[in-house]
């Protein structure tokens, strides 16, 4: 069954409702009462609000009207999974559990899930919905920090990564969740759920790529619940195709003394937006958010981060760096909220941007809301060009100007990449970064 979902004009989103009516009964878990209700409610919220416009503060600098104009197709059930070579998207020596989704659906044939220790569940959301849907109820019901796109996702979501770690379980190998889109006009709503019970630990790579040059829309939501003293690392790699739209929400709930470490690397898509929001639901939480966006041409990239210090003794660090070339446009909005109860909060946020061309643009806005008095908070944002002294230094060492500029751009971006904790992944990212720079051949042995 093919279902064309015209993603609604802003004034009349009803076609989405019509599409929902048409396909709802075919979605995984359609017979699960709580889920059906949740989907209907999410749809109603979406229909009522419609797609955001630039009149809304959170979407002021990111105009998604082009998205509304395209007819998108939800991936279909009966279609044969396209043949995709995922090798180019995997990382040598990483030893990860590879979980592949093609056009929004789990592909057992392309996935390689190794032996898992007791207390660890790694599966596709569609499978869990078919067998033990109750495992997902709490995560699906959470709406903290959600946007209108999360509602759209909630209404149509059919698959995604499910990872559950029982108390005290450390997942030895990282999980590589690979989302490959292959066809034009596909819309995929991946819904990922990661639950780490007390003291559990894992590292998950959420990787979005395109096989070919299709124009499509990814609307992903990742819900992460980190239990007491648990620790989750999440590396989001957005390498969508040049004609793709990518919108993603990563929503984290942190329990007492838990730790969340995030890297968000955005290189692809015509337009991308990522909302990464963590809430400290108890004392002593730590969060580290690092991000890098490196774009050129007419690309548009938007990051919104939020650290909600609701409880005392929390520590958060956010460092986002952007490199914008040609006529690219970047948006960064980083929020820190310190609630009245959150004494002894230690929060820092920085956003640094490098504009490589006169027509590149960045709108950056760090925001601090502090309602507690015994806290240590700071923020800063910079926008600049390559350092003239550093360029001169390299040129005085016989390095040609183009290579010198590439070296300094790499040095600027490397600051974020070096925070990626897994060496094989870091090395691959360094190579990806270098390949994006001019003089790539000369820069091969840089590190």
């Amino acid at each position, binding site marked *: 069954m093919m279902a064309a979902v015209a993603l609604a004009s802003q004034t009349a989103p009803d076609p989405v409702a019509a599409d929902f009516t048409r396909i709802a009964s075919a979605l995984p878990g359609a017979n699960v009462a709580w889920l059906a209700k949740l989907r209907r409610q999410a749809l109603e919220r979406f229909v009522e609000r419609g797609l955001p416009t630039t009149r809304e503060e959170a979407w002021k600098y990111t105009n998604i009207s082009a998205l509304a104009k395209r007819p998108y197709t939800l991936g279909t059930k009966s279609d044969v999974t396209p043949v995709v070579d995922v090798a180019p998207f995997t990382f040598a020596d990483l030893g990860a559990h590879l979980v592949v989704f093609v056009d929004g659906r789990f592909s057992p044939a392309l996935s390689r899930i190794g032996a898992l220790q007791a207390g660890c569940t790694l599966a596709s959301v569609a499978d869990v919905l078919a067998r033990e849907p109750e495992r997902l109820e709490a995560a699906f019901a959470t709406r903290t920090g959600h946007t209108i796109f999360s509602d759209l996702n909630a209404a149509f979501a059919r698959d995604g990564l499910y990872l559950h770690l029982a108390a005290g379980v450390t997942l030895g190998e990282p999980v590589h969740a690979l989302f490959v889109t292959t066809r034009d006009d596909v819309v995929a709503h991946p819904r990922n759920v990661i639950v780490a019970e007390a003291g559990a630990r894992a590292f998950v790579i959420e990787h979005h790529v395109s096989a070919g040059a299709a124009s499509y829309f990814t609307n992903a939501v990742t819900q992460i619940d980190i239990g007491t003293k648990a620790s989750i690392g999440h590396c989001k790699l957005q390498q969508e195709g040049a004609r793709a739209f990518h919108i993603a929400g990563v929503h984290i709930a942190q329990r007492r003394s838990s730790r969340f470490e995030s890297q968000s690397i955005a290189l692809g898509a015509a337009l991308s937006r990522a909302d990464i929001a963590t809430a400290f639901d108890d004392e002593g939480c730590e969060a580290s958010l690092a991000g890098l966006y490196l774009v050129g041409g007419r690309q548009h990239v938007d990051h919104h981060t939020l650290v909600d210090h609701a409880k005392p003794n929390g520590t958060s660090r956010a460092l986002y760096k952007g490199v914008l070339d040609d006529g690219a446009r970047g948006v960064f909005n980083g929020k820190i909220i310190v609630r009245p109860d959150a004494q002894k909060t230690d929060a820092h946020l920085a956003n640094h941007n490098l504009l490589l061309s006169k027509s590149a643009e960045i709108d950056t806005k760090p925001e601090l809301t502090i309602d507690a008095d015994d806290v240590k908070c700071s923020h800063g944002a910079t926008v600049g060009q390559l350092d003239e002294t*550093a360029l001169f230094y390299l040129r005085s060492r016989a390095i040609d100007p183009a290579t010198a500029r590439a070296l300094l751009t790499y*040095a600027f971006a490397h600051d974020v990449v*070096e925070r990626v904790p897994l060496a094989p992944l870091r090395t691959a990212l360094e190579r990806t970064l270098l390949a994006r720079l001019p003089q790539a051949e000369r820069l091969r*042995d840089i590190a």
Partner: protein
Amino acid sequence: MPSNDKQRTSGEPMLVVRDLAVKVDDKQILRGLDLTVNPGEVHAIMGPNGSGKSTLAQVLAGREAFTVTGGEVRYQGHDLLALAPEERAREGVFLAFQYPVEIPGVSNVYLLKAAVNAVRRHRGEQELDAMEFLSLIREKMKLLDMNDQLLFRSVNEGFSGGEKKRNEILQMALLEPALAILDETDSGLDIDALQVVSKGINALRSPERAMVLVTHYQRLLDYVVPDFVHVLAHGRIVKSGGKELALELEARGYGWIEQETARETAQAAK
């Protein structure tokens, strides 16, 4: 006492600076500077802070933020000012920076190899492969008592003051320049580091190579003994002499030179 105009004239001078005038941000820093340096010579340029010493060093290396408003610079008989910084480097001009730049994520060995191979390409020589380069660099590092690990760390990142300056001299040793300009290489060095760096500089002295040492203090000149000492004040060289001039400056400061210059200017006006 030797002076600039009595220098030996056999062969072509390495560097001839004539009436050089330079502006930085609309401020006139150099006002008619003259200097001639022959192969094999070591010249020290001394002077009070703000006299234009560092400006001279950077203009010779091609810093574009500085605007040459008058005069000329001939290097081995060619117009040096017409060349871009990287072209000067490939032609054998080297500047050791007062404040070497940190470049995170770019390994020191990468930069060194890229620099050496850029020069070799320019000379029409075969580029060195990784093995050849490592054996070359290890030999040069011995000269400077440098730890191997500094090769694989990011360029100057987290280096101590002494390590940064040694790294500059290491670059000089690798690039084998015809004209080396050392900008305040002694600043920020403790006595041990100063001795090591000086040993490195002395090892690179040769009849074919000229050096210009820019320094505020005489200290470095105890170890690297110059053939000529020049005093730069108000954008011009106001006094030249032999190595004993540096000692006199150390003992008497720069004030007397300024007075003497003022007197000479007044006499010339009569």
